[in-house]
């Protein structure tokens, strides 16, 4: 497979050398399909629609871009779909970290990101470690000490054991020696309700979801799961600053394409995304969503993903999750 790509690239380069005058830029001629793996209203769907809106507003694309929901298997369906669209330059998709973790854990998720073409990383989603406002714990240290003193008694609400909030728990438990229960809820609403209702003690939450609840004084952020403090949460220490030097499992979102994307097609999309990134519509989306902008080109994205996958493997194994690949 790799050899074929190498050969194709070599041939393409050879052809380019032989016919420099014919080096035309690729432009889309049909509506572009933007594949997202969540349903309407889900995180990826919202991001996809915001991206399309920003592109439309800044008039960056000559053709329509349509969000296409391919729900299923935590991203596996969307990944398979993109894999099948090899050779079609009018299909791209949004990836998140589940595209990395799923193939590691699910036998059926047989399309890994290495087979697809990374185009650009776009954002990193930070997170906050929060407790109820009336919780007795005023700092991360107090919380972790309590967890260590009462092994298994404290509870964290979160998503699936592969999700970032579970990974944060794993690295914190490993670092502090504490132990607390992780209770999975399928939707954010249920997780927050469990926290607000006092049924669990803590949760890891996206700042955008938490913003209003913090502002109205219902919950309190003890730390941020980021490398640097977010401007919106100047007073909340990062995990490292709070005294817990653990890797921050990232929640990246970016754009990728079907396998073996032709170089000129790839170049078009890289350029499109770079310009969309600077557009006012997108910048507003980033601020409203409290997302960390991180634009990387295809090569850097591939390296970032490889590094993240290795990290994830380690964390997942520590969590006791069985890896199948």
């Amino acid at each position, binding site marked *: 497979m790799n050899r074929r790509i190498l050969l194709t690239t070599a041939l393409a380069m050879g052809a380019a050398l032989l016919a420099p005058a014919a080096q035309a830029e690729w432009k889309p001629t049909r509506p572009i399909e933007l594949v997202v793996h969540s349903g309407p209203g889900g995180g990826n769907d919202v991001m996809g629609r915001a991206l399309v809106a920003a592109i439309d507003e800044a008039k960056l694309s000559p053709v329509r871009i349509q969000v296409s929901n391919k729900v299923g298997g935590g991203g596996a369906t969307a990944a398979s779909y993109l894999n099948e669209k090899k050779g079609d330059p009018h299909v791209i998709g949004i990836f998140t970290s589940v595209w990395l973790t799923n193939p590691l854990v699910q036998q059926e998720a047989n399309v890994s990101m290495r087979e697809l073409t990374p185009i650009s990383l776009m954002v990193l989603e930070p997170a906050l470690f929060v407790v109820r406002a009336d919780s007795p714990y005023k700092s991360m240290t107090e919380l972790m000490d309590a967890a260590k003193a009462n092994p298994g008694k404290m509870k964290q609400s979160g998503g699936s054991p592969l999700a970032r909030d579970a990974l944060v728990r794993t690295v914190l438990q490993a670092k502090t020696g504490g132990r607390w229960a992780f209770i999975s809820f399928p939707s954010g609403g249920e997780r927050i309700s469990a926290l607000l209702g006092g049924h669990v003690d803590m949760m890891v939450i996206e700042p955008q979801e938490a913003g*209003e609840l913090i502002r109205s004084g219902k919950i309190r952020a003890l730390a941020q799961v980021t490398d640097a403090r977010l401007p919106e949460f100047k007073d909340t220490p990062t995990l490292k600053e709070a005294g817990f030097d653990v890797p921050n499992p990232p929640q990246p979102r970016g754009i990728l394409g079907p396998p073996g994307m032709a170089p000129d097609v790839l170049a078009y999309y890289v350029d499109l995304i770079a310009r969309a990134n600077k557009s006012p519509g997108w910048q507003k989306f980033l601020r409203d969503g409290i997302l960390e902008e991180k634009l990387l080109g295809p090569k850097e994205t591939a390296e970032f993903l490889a590094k993240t996958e290795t990290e994830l493997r380690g964390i997942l194994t520590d969590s006791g999750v069985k890896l199948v690949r």
Partner: protein
Amino acid sequence: MPTNLLWCLVGCFLGTVVGILPGLGPAATIAMLLPMTYSMSPASGIIMLTGIYYGAKYGGSTTSILLNMPGESSSVVTCIDGYQMARKGRAGAALGIAAIASFIAGSFGIVALSLIAPPIAAFALSFSSPEYFALMALGLALVVLLAGDSLVKGLIALLVGLWLTSIGTDLFTSQSRFTFGQTSLLSGLDFMVVAIGVFAITEVLSSISDQEETQVLPVPKGFRNLLPSWEELKACRFAFANGSIVGFIIGVLPGAGASIASFISYGIERAFSRHPEKFGTGLPEGVAAPEGANNADTGGALIPLLTLGIPGGGTTAILLSALVLWGVKPGPLMMTESPDVFWGLVASLYIGNVMLLILNLPMVPLFAQILRIPVYILHPVIFGVSVIGAYSVSGRLFDVLMLAGFGALGFAMSRLKFPVAPLVLGFVLGDAMERALRQSLMMSQGDLSILISRPISAGMLIFAVAVLFLPLLPRFRRLKEAAG
């Protein structure tokens, strides 16, 4: 203000259309229309989108009653008695009762939303996994009543439903269950695909097999037959209240959807009925309870969204992102900081509810004429619409093939006299119930008493046990009479 009225009407109309067509749900429609609303003011935008949300609950019952094809996931229960009413020539009455129940329960939900939103939200927060489990257990206990003639067959159908819903990825361990190595099954079977297959497709196959007359169902003639009679409306008195309260309460709970609300309301209606055995044969209260419940559910679902910024489910999640996109911050401070949006929305709900009643009631005679269409056109059309419904779930042909499979399953079940409703109920509740139990045990570290030590869950479990023993009461009475 007048433009907002127009947007309300647009939303209600679109919602009704979307509700009628299976598959194209309010969530997807709202998501598709979001970009169009960027240029609108937040108040107008949320008014229109909520109109869609509401309207869909009205429209969903139309095809459920006329064609045994659920238009929306919460309209599945309406098929059970609604379609049977249509078979008896009371299609118009059923449609009318559905609209009236929707209006009454919807109004209740809106009034409750405007008056007691914050305390109800606080109440909902006290609900957690043990209470959810008790609620689902209550729902399943009601299956015993839905079993009809053969309890054994009803229970078998229920268990098959439980199995079908566990297909997919286990939330707590990411273990794939019963996926047969198929990527397509990793996220499980979709409820609409199962429901449309087991209701609509099965009905077409049964009808073809029995070769009924050229027309599918007797067409109601005359004005009197096109609307519910006073007796029918009187019979629904309890159902209107039942649907309103049950739907509203379940709507407030995040994660418990309108389908659950309609099933439980239907079950409670049957539990308290004087003629429970007649359910499933075409009772008006069997339509009024679930239809009311799924409308009251909308009002309830808006409460956590508007008071805490917590979306309860699919459609409210999109409404949340819509509000965020407009810069309105849904949360505890929304009522005070954006009162124009909040109260504008509430006002539009009142008006929209009335608009929907006015839109839907006169359409009843028109809709009933669908039954005039000759079968050789109507049946393929039902197939076509079902395929569209199944395909639009995730855009995969796999779902359509599953649809065919469930059509065959439903047909086999109906020939072998296995009731289908328990299978659907098991499918709706099984997943949630398993999750709730495992969450509860994780919270209590394996201590089962968490389910009975909390007042609300204990109460519901006692109710569930009582429901299980209710059918036996007359038998005990007879035994006592025979002995004494």
